[in-house]
């Protein structure tokens, strides 16, 4: 089992190192994160999905706190 752990860790560390090298190379050659985000948004509609999951989580929290959110339940002076 220890030998398997060693092999797995070596593979994972090598992959992480390769990823870090690629990220560094991308930044050095002029990569732009906003451009990447736009491309992803166009393809996967990230903004819509993020908005959807925000609404779902808000509804879930509101159903958990029966008496409203802690901020709303607090007495107003």
């Amino acid at each position, binding site marked *: 089992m220890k030998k398997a752990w060693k092999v797995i*860790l070596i593979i994972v560390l090598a992959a992480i190192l390769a990823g870090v090298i690629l*990220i560094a*190379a*991308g930044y050095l050659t*002029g*990569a*732009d994160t906003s451009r990447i985000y736009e491309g992803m948004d166009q*393809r996967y509609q990230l903004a819509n999905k993020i908005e959807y999951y925000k609404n779902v989580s808000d509804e879930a929290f509101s159903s958990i706190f029966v008496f409203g959110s802690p901020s709303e339940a607090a007495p107003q002076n």
Partner: protein
Amino acid sequence: MTITLWNNIITLIVCRITEVTVINKQKFLAELGKLLTFMYEEDRQIALGLYENMFDTCANEQLLLQHLGTPTRQAVMVARSYNSGERKLQISSDSRSGEDEAQDPQYISVIQNVERAFTARYGNTQQEEVSEDQISLFETFDFITAPEEPSAEEPEQTSLFDLLDEPAESFIRDEPAAEEAAAEETEAAEEPFEPEQAEEPLIEEAAEELPEAQEEAAPEEQPEAKEADFVEYTLEPVQPEEPEEEAEEEEDEEEEPERIPTVRKVKPAMLLLYILLAIPAIVVGTAVLLVPTVLFLLAATAAVILGILIVSFPFGGLTVFADIMLVLGVGIIVLALGFLFLWTFVWLIGGAIVGHIQGVIRLGGKLCYKEVPVK
């Protein structure tokens, strides 16, 4: 290779010459001691003690030396009657049974037979005291009786088995026929000892010592046949009964302490109590371990799916090479983390949970059972 072979042959010839020409009690025993190194040390000491006792009890040392022949011959006789494997078993059985009267090993009887043969042939020389006015028959044999210091040039015989590997003819000296020897034997008690007897053959001695040789040594037989019998007696290849490897294995076995057979007996009350405690412990422990296991499984699944999406995205949605490299780097890192989570999940299932259950069972085995020696 050839040079070594010739060296061995020359060494053996020199040994043989020195054995035959100049020998006394000390030299005989020293040579015999070297040749009997194949025996267990205790047996070797016993054999040498018997020969030494033979010399001590015999008034005429040279006569006894003539009777015994060469140390090599005596060593071959002892080797033929000595079985180290059987000897070991005999020693162990004697020590276990604790009987005082252990059966004498065969080699002792062979040595005693030699002594008996000497006594039968030359009479009891033990009590013979030669008065000063009598003339010694061996005064002329100063070259034999003069004690010689062992020369440094004399080659060593390291093992009897080196000699046993010799061709059969090397053990046979120029000897007269057996019939002549028998005739001489009858006259031996009456006639004075002659110098030629120093080179006398030992065929008749061998015939006395071995029953089969006695049967075959009938006077009507041809001398050639008797000589063949003698050759068969003395020169049969004596192989060591146990190779060195087997001997080493046996030594290892001897070194290991004897294990006393035991039986596991259950302690019922303790076992019942332990079962009552172990079942909840296993359930709780497994449940506790299952939580991180499931979390790791979810994380691994999410990381792998996300990593695949990230890695596949830049090939269709990005045009700038720098952006592609950046996204690929992130995707590889996510995939690597997903692989690590997946392996952690497998380790938790196969190692941690199963190990926990086995550990609890093993602990129960230690606590609830006791080893009792078999009566």
